[in-house]
């Protein structure tokens, strides 16, 4: 029987607003309503999930809805979970709609109980127990509790491989991640059974056999059984090895694009070798990469072995080049401060050009070499609607590239430094290197400005210039007893001569003034007598640098060698030259490059020429200290000058020398507790080095080399590279000034 609704009232609302009810109850005032329509309307209201019970009855024209709200969740507590994080559980709950303030549904709670239990069983915790309860709370709310008893994990007591003859059980079990229990297994938890780990191990077993030529190898069955008390797990794997195959012949089939000889050269397996799956895959990859260089980025090469006798097989490489692909657009993401051009100029792959996998990959390394980014990733995605166009997107994560030493600094060399020094390798994201500095301390007053544009031309010809003025009072600095003022400038150019090597050269002028201090050493006084105390020198500098380092900051692979010469050309007051070699190489020991061997070497030689028989003493090389031979005070190695400081007889200052030999052997280790971060580095090192002065009878001899061992730590911070080292000198002799703890800020080494 129909009736028109003159008014609607809702009873029993506690927390739900009337607005919500009306918006979900499709009945307007004045509408006529029959039984069926009323039932549909109520069902619609139920769908909101806000109510456990809805009743409708009539009072003449007014329709009265008596509702009972579904309780809301007041709180959620989880107890007893150790191996699944609480917030992982909370996320799972909120994903299923179980959050504080949300509507509580018992069915969801039961489903969650089951899901949590299942994930525990997946971890091999067979006797885990999960109990979920909901306790009433005032004003129609409930407190949800999850009681978890994880129980202990079933440990693997025995793994038995049956049917293996070519390899012993021990050999095969070494490949497994799952291990039987040993006293240390509680640390590695390798003996904890989990289904995924077993299937992973079976895959490793299969690829081991396929790599050893067992083409017909097959895993018949793997059965897992558990002891009645659910504490011990047993794994039995039965295999059939089949014969070991060798390669009878190799052929290429399909559209090769490049001449066949070029491809056969890349095949490094030959008839007679054992048929190794990994060798086939590696060769196929090499072939498809070669096609990638021709623009066939989606080339597909797979090797199919077919048995030609019961222990030989013919291998055919099927080449499917696909379409030659072109790059439509190259996009950069994440460069919020670095300009687009700074990234684009590193690209050897052009837009609108043939897509080459080599160039796309090489461009990624070029970006990493800049040292501006903590991480660089590239992905090549097909352009929808075309079958031969791709877009390439480089995603970078920027990292601090400058160093900002604040006004109060302290360096062991020159005491408290006042003043600021800003150097930025990526000046406002323009890719230019700029550094401006002014320092005042008792021993050094200096100001410097340098600017370099690495891309003065589009091919990477760099142009830069620098100006500096420095007044030092060496007495304070405990180097030696005279005052040196220097003013000058340099103009430098550089350009690449191949993908990894650069030539640099420059011209410059330096005016040096020496003032004798109170206890100036005899050598200095002699020098001043015959040479005078002020020299203007014109410099010609040149250097050759080859670097394949894979990253600009804290590299993990590759090497860099540089040979440089500074010559004070004729026409200068003092004609001399300084040659210097620097070498640095990194050998990663493992796949994710957390263990690396590093060797660093530096050699220097200086001498006078023309009417000068030796290089000026203030241009001497020094050694010792952080960045050189750690464990010894900065610049303290080598020859000592004969001081005539009466009351400080043993304090004769280091005088440096014209021959520098320095070297470091370092093992870079993963930084503890820091996880895999690219901005920290911990290493164990052996430093060795010495400075000699052939012009004053301090000739090079192995006995004099100073060595030290220690631990070093580096951290790229916003303020700049921070580094410190703890070093124990080994071959120090009496009179050496040793220093166990040393640090530096702003100088990456």
């Amino acid at each position: 029987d129909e009736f028109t609704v003159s008014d609607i009232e809702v009873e029993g609302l506690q927390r739900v607003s009337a607005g919500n009810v009306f918006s979900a109850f499709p009945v307007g005032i004045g509408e006529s309503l029959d039984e069926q329509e009323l039932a549909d309307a109520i069902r619609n209201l139920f769908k909101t999930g806000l109510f456990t019970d809805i009743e409708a009855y009539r009072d003449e024209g007014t329709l009265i809805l008596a509702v009972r709200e579904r309780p809301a969740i007041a709180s959620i507590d989880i107890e007893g979970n150790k191996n699944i994080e609480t917030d992982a559980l909370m996320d799972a709950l909120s994903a299923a709609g179980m959050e504080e303030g949300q509507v509580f549904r018992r069915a969801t709670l039961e489903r969650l109980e089951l899901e949590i239990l299942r994930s525990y069983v997946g971890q091999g915790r067979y006797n885990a127990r999960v109990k979920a309860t909901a306790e009433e709370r005032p004003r129609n709310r409930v407190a949800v509790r999850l009681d978890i008893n994880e129980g202990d994990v079933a440990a693997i007591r025995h793994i038995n491989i049956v049917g293996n003859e070519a390899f012993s059980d021990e050999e095969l079990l070494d490949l497994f991640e799952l291990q039987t229990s040993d006293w240390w297994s509680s640390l590695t938890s390798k003996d904890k059974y989990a289904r995924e780990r077993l299937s992973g191990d079976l895959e490793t077993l299969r690829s081991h056999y396929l790599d050893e030529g067992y083409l017909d190898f097959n895993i018949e069955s793997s059965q897992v059984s558990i002891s009645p008390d659910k504490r011990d797990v047993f794994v039995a794997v039965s295999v059939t090895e089949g014969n070991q195959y060798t390669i009878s012949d190799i052929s290429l089939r399909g559209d090769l694009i490049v001449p066949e000889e070029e491809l056969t050269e890349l095949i490094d397996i030959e008839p007679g070798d054992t048929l190794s799956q990994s060798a086939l895959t590696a060769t196929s990859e090499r072939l498809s990469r070669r096609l990638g260089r021709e623009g066939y980025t989606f080339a597909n090469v797979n090797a199919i072995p077919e048995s030609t006798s019961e222990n030989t097989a013919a291998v055919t490489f099927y080449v499917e080049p696909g379409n030659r692909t072109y790059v439509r657009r190259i996009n950069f993401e994440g460069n919020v401060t670095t300009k687009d051009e700074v990234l684009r100029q590193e690209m050897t792959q052009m837009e609108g050009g043939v897509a080459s996998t080599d160039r796309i990959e090489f461009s990624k390394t070029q970006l990493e070499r800049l040292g501006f980014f903590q991480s660089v990733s590239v992905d090549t995605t097909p352009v929808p609607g075309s079958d031969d166009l791709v877009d390439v997107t480089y995603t970078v994560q920027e990292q601090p590239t400058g160093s900002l030493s604040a006004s109060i600094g302290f360096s062991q060399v020159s005491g408290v430094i006042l003043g600021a020094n800003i150097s930025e390798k990526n000046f406002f994201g323009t890719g230019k290197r700029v550094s401006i500095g002014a320092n005042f301390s008792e021993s050094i007053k200096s100001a410097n400005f340098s600017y370099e544009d690495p891309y003065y031309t589009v091919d990477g010809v760099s142009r830069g210039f620098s100006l500096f003025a420095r007044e030092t009072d060496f007495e304070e600095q405990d180097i030696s007893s005279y005052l040196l003022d220097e003013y000058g400038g340099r103009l430098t150019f550089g350009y690449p001569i191949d993908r990894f090597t650069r030539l640099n050269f420059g011209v410059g002028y330096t005016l040096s003034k020496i003032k004798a201090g109170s206890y100036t050493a005899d050598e200095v006084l002699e020098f001043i007598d015959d040479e005078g105390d002020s020299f203007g020198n014109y410099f010609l500098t040149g250097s050759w640098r080859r670097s394949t380092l894979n990253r600009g900051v804290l590299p993990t692979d590759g090497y860099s060698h540089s040979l440089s010469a500074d010559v004070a050309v004729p026409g200068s007051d003092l004609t001399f030259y300084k040659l210097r070699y620097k070498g640095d190489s990194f050998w990663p020991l493992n796949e994710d490059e957390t263990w690396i061997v590093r060797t660093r070497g530096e050699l220097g030689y200086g001498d006078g020429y023309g009417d000068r028989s030796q290089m000026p003493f203030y241009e001497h090389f020094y050694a010792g200290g952080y960045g050189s031979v750690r464990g010894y005070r900065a610049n303290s190695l080598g020859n000592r000058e004969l001081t005539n400081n009466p009351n400080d007889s043993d304090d004769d200052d280091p005088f440096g020398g014209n021959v520098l030999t320095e070297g470091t052997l370092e093992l870079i280790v993963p930084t503890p507790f820091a996880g895999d971060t690219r901005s920290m580095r911990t290493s164990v090192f052996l430093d060795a080095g010495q400075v000699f002065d052939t012009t004053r009878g301090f000739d090079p001899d192995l006995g004099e080399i100073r060595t030290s061992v220690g631990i070093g730590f580096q951290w790229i911070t916003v303020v700049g590279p921070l580094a410190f080292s703890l070093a124990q000198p080994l071959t120090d002799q009496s009179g050496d000034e040793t220093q166990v703890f040393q640090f530096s800020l702003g100088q990456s080494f």
Partner: protein
Amino acid sequence: CVFPGVYKINVQQGNIVTEEAIAQLEPGMSRSQVHSALGTPLTLNAADTSVEYYVYTFQEAGGDIRKQKVVVHYDGDTYTHLEKQLLDEQPAY
């Protein structure tokens, strides 16, 4: 530009189109058939869709740029004819 022996990369642009590919074309083909033979054209004229350019350029180590051009003409969406001046070889890198 100026220093002796500066290493300059080769700059390749545009579609590589060979005689064999052109040989597959016959008038009356649809645009997509032409594209599957020659590849997707990388240079278009925003104002005139009746023509598609298959331009190819190759600059070796910063030297002068060798160019090649194939202009494909359409009447609506069917291929009519093309003009071509091909280089004898078209390296990809």
